[in-house]
């Protein structure tokens, strides 16, 4: 692993202004992302997990420049990309691709599969004529689509097949990083497993880095190298997969893990039931954002915002004031 990470995100912020009131005054902001930092190495999978509304998808779209960041920096191979003008992003666009959640709305219903997959190749002038055809066929083989799918329209395919078309499109320009925005959440369990296996095979084969945005911890545990847990626009814990799943540090991570369904009804479970809802990102709580729901809350949490600190385990950082979170009450 070289020293320069493939993707570096530094204190990324996205504040959506609320609709202005009648006199044009700004009423406030939705703090969708509030200082998110992480790095992603070549060929690595980093999963972003969290409840809905915590800013996972905004993070993906902001990195992709589908949404303009409010503040912070994004580097690709050490080159800053967040402040480059949109029409000079060609290199970044070629290397960073996206697979969306909904396999039905992510493909243009009036384009044939070959045009969908070929579009990025043509955009970057990577191939034309018979070479283009060859590349499209190779991509379809790679994602295990039958070749006669080429001249069909998206509505002729099932959800899993459509998602494979989406993956082929993301691979088309020879990308290094694919942002999977809930890429398997809309699929059936068996199809989900196939797509996940396909993604990890492709990763081995092509050395892809994946930024895997998901709320499905079972999938994440299977697929990922590292996991970042997000809560209300901030990363609260980031750790290696094994460390996170065996010794979670942050109380929120623990609550999330305890909520993962276990297929055995007789298995003993220590569910941590959190009280209340996620607070509004328009008016996030002071201090630690989790303090309104944390079972271990104490005075300091309400005033001082905890920073990501290393824990006793290597490669684990957590934003909690408690040095040693007490063991789960059983």
């Amino acid at each position, binding site marked *: 692993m070289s020293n320069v990470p493939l993707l570096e995100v530094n204190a990324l912020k996205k504040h959506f202004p609320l609709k202005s009131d009648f006199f044009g005054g700004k009423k406030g902001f939705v703090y969708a992302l509030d200082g998110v930092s992480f790095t992603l190495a070549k060929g690595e999978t980093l999963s972003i997990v969290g409840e809905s509304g915590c800013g996972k998808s905004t993070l993906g779209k902001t990195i992709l420049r589908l949404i303009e960041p409010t503040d912070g920096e994004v580097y690709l191979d050490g080159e800053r990309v967040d402040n480059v003008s949109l029409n000079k992003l060609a290199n970044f666009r*070629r290397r960073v691709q*996206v697979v969306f959640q909904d396999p039905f709305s992510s493909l243009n219903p009036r*384009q044939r599969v070959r045009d969908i997959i070929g579009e990025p190749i043509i955009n970057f002038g990577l191939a034309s004529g018979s070479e283009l055809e060859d590349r499209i066929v190779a991509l379809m083989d790679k994602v295990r689509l039958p070749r006669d799918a080429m001249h069909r329209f998206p509505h*002729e395919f099932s959800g899993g097949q459509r998602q494979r078309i989406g993956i082929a499109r993301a691979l088309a320009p020879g990308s290094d990083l694919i942002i999977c925005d809930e890429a398997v959440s809309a699929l059936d369990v068996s199809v989900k*497993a196939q797509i996940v296996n396909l993604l990890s095979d492709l990763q081995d084969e092509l050395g892809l880095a994946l930024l895997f945005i998901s709320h499905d911890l079972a999938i994440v545990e299977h*697929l990922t190298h590292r996991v970042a847990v997000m809560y209300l626009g901030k990363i609260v814990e980031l750790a290696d997969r094994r460390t996170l799943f065996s010794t979670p540090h942050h109380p929120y991570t623990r609550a999330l893990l305890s909520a993962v369904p276990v297929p055995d009804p007789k298995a003993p479970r220590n569910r941590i039931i959190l009280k209340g809802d996620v607070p509004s990102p328009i008016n996030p709580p002071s201090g630690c954002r989790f303090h309104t729901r944390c079972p271990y809350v104490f005075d300091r949490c309400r005033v001082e915002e905890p920073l990501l600190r290393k824990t006793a385990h290597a490669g684990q950082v957590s934003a909690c004031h408690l040095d040693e979170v007490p063991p789960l009450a059983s």
Partner: protein
Amino acid sequence: MSVSIEPGFAAAPVLRDVLPPRRERGRVMLFIYRHPTIAVGGLLLGLMVLIAIFAPFLHTVDPTALAPARRTRAPNAQYWFGSDMLGRDIYSRVLYGARVSLLVGFLVAAVSSLVGLTIGLCAGFIRILDTVMMRVMDGLMSIPSILLAIAFMALIGASVQNVVIAISVAEIPRVARLVRGVVLSLREQAYVEAAIASGTSTFKIIWRHILPNTLAPIIVQATFICASAMLAEATLSFIGAGTPPTTPSWGNIMAEGRALWQVKPFIVFFPAVFLSITVLAVNLLGDGLRDALDPRLAKRI
């Protein structure tokens, strides 16, 4: 990385991809069976178009030729539809009148669709223009369209070309609003975002991803505009603010027959029947197209 990934989830073996056989194209009967309204509407409209094109060869005489001695004749062997109070052959006038009505209908549909499409695309894509353009459109829409057309005709004088302009101006805001709405919902679609992420230029996004998906609603809207434009033309001609009296149009013939409609109803009857059939045909076509082009219904292969 320090952590290794266990090989493979316990996934079900990947099934061979079974894709439905491709549908064969053609099959006229099947099409008529699936879309009866398109077939009937298209047939009637096609008939009207043929009548308009071949009007000189369909046993007609000069529609403006006067014959004061033989005025207001009831339909007979010589005057199939009768003659009006100047002795002109109503059959010829109605057939030639189809030219004006269809021309106005199609031209207004084309002009207002194209202009409305352009305005709608601009408004949907360029935030600054959106507010300004849409307020102008709102302003135009707040005036009853027939009044707007009358005012226009009073300003620019009577001619078929001016009728087209006057009616188009009134219809443009409707198309523009429709297109803007569709564009606003399309630009949030994931496939548009995916296209942006894969480096597609804004122009290509509009051309390849937005435009093809706005065509279906526009075509449907265009047929309804076509029908209402023909009615509007007849209305304008009827009140004397439309096609000049020298050119026969269905509205003109009805306007002239209005004074006598209780004693000589056939003067009004024949152009009215033709107008009704044409408007019905266009509306049937539009209804059928809406069903056929609706992507939600397209799934039921």
